[in-house]
């Protein structure tokens, strides 16, 4: 019932906002100076009729206040109620169920298709797929993302899901930990995203071949082979749409919220919070797909990012164009060369673990 009311109220507010905009464009709006003048005249003819003064009270104009704090002169701000209705309503409800639905879809897909196995047996000839720098960039981003996602979920849904289980005090400790991790890892995540961009952008340029991949969804459902470069179109979309676009969205909105010492208004922070929620929800939805494909969904994918090398057969079956390039360049079978000196030389454990 409450939720229904919130929904209705939001619709009404949207309508009111549109009406206000329409009014703005059609007729003159009463400026604070106009209202003050009206009140001056009214104080003569109708003493104690303060209507004009209180028209200004709802945040339209800052009054004078002797306290040097941002927005201290605002008597009443309306935005908080809208933010509350949206955050506690649509944004957390839709976002939360979307995450649950995504997990169910992935679970169903796994039950249906299982892990994509290699068709040919591994040849034992390894190719370097990710350099140490590339892997560090990936795992730096991945680990900070995971911590941010989990701590963010604790802060948004813990009140509903965890307090009834672990109680107020324990949850408060957990929330303090989550808040501090979220606030300190946030900026690190942004830096990780930038490093990831620099390291991986060259291999993520969209080409004509990628549209073919998208049209057949990478053969994920049909099982048909679709050739792709070092990164297939799905990975490229995750790079641009996920890491770059959503990274920018959650990064910028997160910084607005993380550093409240620049005098940003509550309206800015309310908007930033809703943008952050939306971006983070989409980011987590994408990440669930990405993590599934990188672990359970595809044999050999996780090993590639762990060790940096893949078997020849894996390369041929999943990234044929890239494999052909590597073959031509004579890189097949001499993996490990590019690994930084002093680092443990990776054991070729890509598929099945034998060589």
């Amino acid at each position, binding site marked *: 019932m409450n939720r229904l009311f919130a929904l209705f109220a939001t619709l009404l507010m949207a309508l009111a906002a549109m009406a206000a905009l329409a009014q703005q464009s059609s007729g003159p709006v009463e400026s604070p100076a106009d209202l003050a003048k009206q009140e001056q005249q009214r104080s003569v003819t109708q003493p104690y009729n303060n209507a004009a003064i209180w028209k*200004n009270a709802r945040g339209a104009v800052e009054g004078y206040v002797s306290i040097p*704090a941002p927005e201290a002169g605002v008597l009443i701000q309306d935005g908080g109620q809208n*933010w*509350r209705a949206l955050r506690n309503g649509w944004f957390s409800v839709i976002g939360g169920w979307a995450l649950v639905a995504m997990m169910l879809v992935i679970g169903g897909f796994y039950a249906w298709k299982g892990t994509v196995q290699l068709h040919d047996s591994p040849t034992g000839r390894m190719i370097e797929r990710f350099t140490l720098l590339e892997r560090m960039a990936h795992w730096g981003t991945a680990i900070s993302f995971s911590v941010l996602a989990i701590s963010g979920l604790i802060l948004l849904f*813990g009140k509903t899901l965890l307090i009834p289980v672990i109680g*107020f005090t324990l949850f408060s400790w957990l929330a303090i930990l989550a808040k501090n991790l979220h606030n300190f890892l946030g900026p690190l995540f942004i830096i990780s995203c930038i490093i990831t961009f620099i390291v991986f952008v060259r291999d993520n340029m969209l080409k004509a071949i990628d549209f073919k991949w998208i049209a057949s969804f990478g053969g994920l459902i049909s099982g048909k082979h679709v050739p792709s470069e070092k990164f297939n179109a799905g990975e490229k979309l995750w790079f641009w749409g996920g890491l770059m676009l959503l990274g920018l969205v959650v990064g910028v909105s997160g910084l607005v*919220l993380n550093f409240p010492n620049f005098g940003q208004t509550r309206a800015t922070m309310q908007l930033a919070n809703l943008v952050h929620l939306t971006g983070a929800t989409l980011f987590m939805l994408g990440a669930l797909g990405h993590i599934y494909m990188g672990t359970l969904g595809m044999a050999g994918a996780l090993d590639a990012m762990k060790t940096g090398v893949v078997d020849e057969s894996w390369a041929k079956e999943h990234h044929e164009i890239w494999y052909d390039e590597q073959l031509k360049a004579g890189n097949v079978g001499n993996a490990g060369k590019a690994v930084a000196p002093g680092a443990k030389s990776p054991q070729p454990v890509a598929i099945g673990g034998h060589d």
Partner: protein
Amino acid sequence: MARMKFICDAERCIECNGCVTACKNEHDVPWGVNRRRVVTLNDGIVGAERSISVACMHCSDAPCMAVCPVNCFYKTEDGVVLHDKDLCIGCGYCFYACPFGAPQFPQAGAFGVRGKMDKCTFCAGGPEKDNSKAEHEKYGRNRLAEGKLPACAEMCSTKALLAGDGDVLSDIYRERVMRRGRGGDLWGHATAYGRPDAKATGPILQSIPQKS
């Protein structure tokens, strides 16, 4: 059971900031935090200037309570909205949601890191034992437990700011409004600063005795 409320009569407030000072003094409010403030609208415009004292209004459906991620807010039997600083994580959400700008955060580190939220308690302390040392250190004095009303209203020199049982406040304010219809012959804003004569209208207003 009383429902505690604040009311500020803008016709009486003279922007002396006595309520702000009384509050800061009563509760040893930390530097940078003001549980109460006085806002002046149309400052300096003769005939249109009004001041009003504002703090936590102890809402019936409190937005701070609704958005708090750790559920640290609670409502007393008197309708006072209080919070538990031991649970507060300093996220700032109550500050986004509050219409009155009541929740405040002492800075707890570089880059504006927020400490535990502080706000008006209606002089009713916190969850600790009434008037214990722990309660006093975190929330200030618990005047309600001593049978006293909030210090700000008690201190108000023009009785613009009233605090207490909502029913009693309503009666006081209603009487003021009725009397003013006659011509502000109580201690209204206009009485302090002069006002043009206005003729009384309506039977109810005429029934109130007029100052000669």
